[in-house]
């Protein structure tokens, strides 16, 4: 491991149990996350991005199996016993999920939910935990934190609830925060506030954040490096600016082209033809080849692995049709 690397995922594979036997939801994924870095995982639904986060936290559905390694602070998360993992989860690695109205318990006070982890993991008393909860809520900019502690989730708006969910995640000062579509359920104005909050936390607390989203605009705003996933595999991985301005994988190009044009106008949207593969329906060869305008014969037969094309930039597309334009 290089200095500063917090999490190193190598050849992560996740098999989910289906009626037709085990199927790969994640297939040989490798990436690293440095301390204080925001790492983005992008992809459409079914690309395996959420399953990656679940595998790291040991929260995969029953009967799922994993392969590969995920080394966090020197220990392999995938090889840990459930008991060891419970000490890591919520303490060194925390998670923020998409929908704050389901991730917070509706019947418990905010105080209970923010202090629960601290009291369990850090073994501190009620009043000390309470004091820290007030600090946390003001860190995430909840107005009048003392009063907020007595309130329940339903008394807050969606954006405020997501801020509270982030406070819960930060309670034990984690080193790594997994944020799965943290702003998808929110309005753009509220989303802007949450993105700014995540950015501030990373700077002030040297917190590493893995942001999982299908929204390339969100990626562009917060991520330092981006991994684009397709069919459970890495299509392209590299620095934010390189991936978004000079994509080398046809799928990344397609995702960017499908976005409304920043200058607007009468032009129609350009969707990627076809739809993403379902679990177990990932085609042979390159998973993207049936939808790819540049596919050649070898794409149908050989499954490409990401290969370096530039500084920190790896692309799983051997024909490299976009190489000339980069």
């Amino acid at each position, binding site marked *: 491991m290089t200095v500063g690397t917090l999490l190193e995922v190598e050849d992560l594979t996740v098999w989910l149990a289906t009626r037709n036997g085990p199927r790969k939801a994640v297939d040989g994924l490798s990436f690293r996350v440095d301390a204080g870095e925001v790492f983005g995982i992008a992809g*459409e639904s079914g690309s395996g991005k959420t399953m990656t986060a679940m595998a790291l936290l040991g929260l995969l559905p029953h009967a799922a199996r994993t392969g590969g390694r995920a080394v966090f602070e020197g220990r392999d998360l995938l090889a840990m016993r459930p008991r060891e993992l419970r000490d890591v989860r919520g303490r060194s690695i925390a998670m923020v999920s998409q929908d704050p109205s389901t991730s917070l318990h509706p019947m418990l006070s905010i105080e209970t939910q923010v202090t629960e982890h601290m009291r369990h993991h850090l073994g501190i008393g009620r009043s000390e935990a309470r004091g820290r909860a007030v600090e946390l809520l003001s860190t995430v900019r909840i107005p009048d934190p003392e009063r907020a502690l007595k309130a329940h989730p339903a008394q807050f708006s969606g954006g405020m609830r997501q801020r509270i969910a982030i406070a819960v995640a930060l309670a034990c000062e984690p080193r790594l925060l997994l944020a799965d579509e943290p702003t998808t359920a929110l309005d753009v104005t509220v989303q802007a506030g949450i993105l700014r909050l995540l950015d501030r936390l990373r700077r002030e607390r040297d917190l590493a954040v893995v942001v999982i989203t299908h929204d390339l*605009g969100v990626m562009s705003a917060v991520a330092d490096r981006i991994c684009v996933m397709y069919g459970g595999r890495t299509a392209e991985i590299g620095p934010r600016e390189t991936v978004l301005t000079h994509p080398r994988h046809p799928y990344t190009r397609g995702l960017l082209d499908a976005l409304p044009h920043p200058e607007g106008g009468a032009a129609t*949207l350009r969707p990627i033809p076809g739809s993403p593969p379902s679990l177990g329906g990932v085609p042979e060869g390159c998973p993207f080849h049936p939808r790819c305008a540049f596919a050649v014969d070898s794409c149908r037969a050989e499954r490409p692995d990401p290969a370096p094309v530039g500084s920190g930039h790896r692309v799983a597309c051997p024909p490299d049709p976009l190489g000339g334009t980069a």
Partner: protein
Amino acid sequence: MSVLLEATGVAVEYHRQGAAPLRAVDHADLTLARGEILGLVGESGCGKSTLGRAVVGLQRTAAGEIRFDGRPVAPLGLRRRPAGMRGLQMVFQDPYASLNPRRLVGDQVGDGYLLGGTTKAEARRRAGELLERVGLPADAVRRYPHEFSGGQRQRIAIARTLAAEPSCIIADEPISALDASAQASVANLLVELVRELDMGMVFISHDLSVVRQIADRTAVMYLGRVVEVGPTRQVWSEPAHPYTKALISAVPRADGGGVLPVELPGDVPDPSRPPGGCRFHPRCPVALPSCAENDPPLTILRDGRSAACVLAK
């Protein structure tokens, strides 16, 4: 262009037990011409869906008037709607909820023709044509909704709407529940249909960048009011209302620049207790002292643009 749909001073109230009525829409105005796409945007809770439902008659209004093709739109009751209202149709957000899982796709699409008085066989044949028109295979007629993906289901729901031969469609977040690539293709389909059939469409969405791409005109709602309306291009390039400006600068761009979007502080106030004066003044970055007292009406500026702000020129 002739006016197809016109709403003036529409108000919708939700009555709640033991509490004051909640005014979800308060004096909202809208007009829509044939062949035109009007984007209706705003944060959640601003009343855009309620206004959309009121306009098709799914929601009883407390005040104001809605006219479709020159005739007043009456709220939908237990009886059959007057024939003149068949041209006004709605596309809903969730195609998992808007289609009956236990009926064949062809039968559901054909309903509109049956109500129009055709025979069963004819309705089914024409349903097949419509399904092909929206980009589905012809054998879709004999299949069930669960056999299709979200994007395909939304196409089925659109075909079902088209069977009524509408001249005006109200689409409430029609692409929000779909995957990114399906979003673009369903949005394109709606635009094509509007142009080809010379319909009008109100496209309700929280996704400003899609509205920017497809809408001819954009109306921005805040707390039950339309605060700005105008040709999409101008509304985006020089927004007249500070709220429109805030919304636009909050949209992150996928340009790789690493620029954080601008935050609009504060939450949308409780619509049952709207602030006095201009409803946006507590969050407005350029509010004047007088904004706390005077509630500006939607005023015509120029070039078909209107805004409800004292600072708008």
